[in-house]
């Protein structure tokens, strides 16, 4: 079984992929994440007083999908330490359409495909479903693979 923490640098509470169901390295992945009220975003009791109020934040839905995308190449070039090796940097997103809210108890199934890979730049596309029902679609996500040193340099600039 693949341990996503061996591949991705994200950790609790921001490791938002639970398990890989199916992967073709460099081509596509299907991965799942279970949504639970035990995530820190639900710590405020007032937040879950109604079903609408308990909807999972769309930004985290897309973050989770993007982390699944990170597994496609990451499985052959793992990056468990963000300051070593090559890191995946999110460049842009286009046409992410949301179709239904996600609530605690839902299990997200992310389907991510490589649309195009040119040098160190990769374009992903795909969708997310819950119980076979479409949650959102991603027309295009562009990422760039860069040496981890670029992050250290950027952080250093900000801290001086």
């Amino acid at each position, binding site marked *: 079984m693949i341990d996503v923490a061996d591949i991705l640098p994200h950790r609790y*509470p921001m490791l938002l992929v639970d398990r890989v169901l199916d992967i073709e390295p460099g081509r596509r992945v299907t991965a799942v994440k279970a949504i639970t009220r035990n995530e820190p975003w639900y710590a*405020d009791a007032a937040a879950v007083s109604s079903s609408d109020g308990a*909807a999972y*934040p769309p*930004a985290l839905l*897309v973050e989770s999908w993007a982390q699944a995308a990170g597994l496609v190449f990451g499985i052959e070039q793992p990056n468990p330490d963000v300051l070593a090796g090559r890191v995946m940097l999110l460049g*842009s997103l286009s046409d992410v359409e949301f179709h239904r809210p996600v609530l605690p108890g839902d299990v997200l199934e992310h389907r991510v495909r490589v649309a195009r890979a040119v040098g160190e730049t990769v374009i992903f596309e795909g969708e997310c479903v819950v119980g076979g029902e479409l949650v959102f679609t991603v027309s295009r996500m562009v990422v760039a693979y860069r040496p981890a040193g670029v992050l250290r340099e950027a952080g250093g600039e*900000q801290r001086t």
Partner: protein
Amino acid sequence: MTVHLDRPAEVGPGQPGAVDAVRDDTGARAVSPVAGAVHRTGPAEVTFTVSADEPVFAGHYPNFPIFPGMCVLEIAHRGALLTAPEPGLALAAMKSARFTAPVFAGDRLTVAVDWKRDRERWTCVARARAGDRDVAVVRLDYRAGGDR
């Protein structure tokens, strides 16, 4: 019915300066990866200061905290809801998002929003800056009929 214990009594929704989107009257953004408050500082501007205490930093990343791009997007979304042209808008799409510089603890984000009606939807273009750096430009589409 949501009870807001920590909202100052004199501050109402839509008033500049002290509105926290997490605890706004609709409760729409009550569940958020960003713990801090987004403040409306003008008719089309919100600000947010990135605290080192934000919970995402523990895991993004251990020993090297970077504020996630998706959290910048979350700030833009909350800024959009705070400045929305009508109540009850729900996020329908992220039409585009471009991330141009990383954001770190201590940064003060200023987000300028520009709303336009586009047939059945409202479109909000949000430009986020940290000091003199452009960090992101996002275009979000909203539809009427409930929050999420």
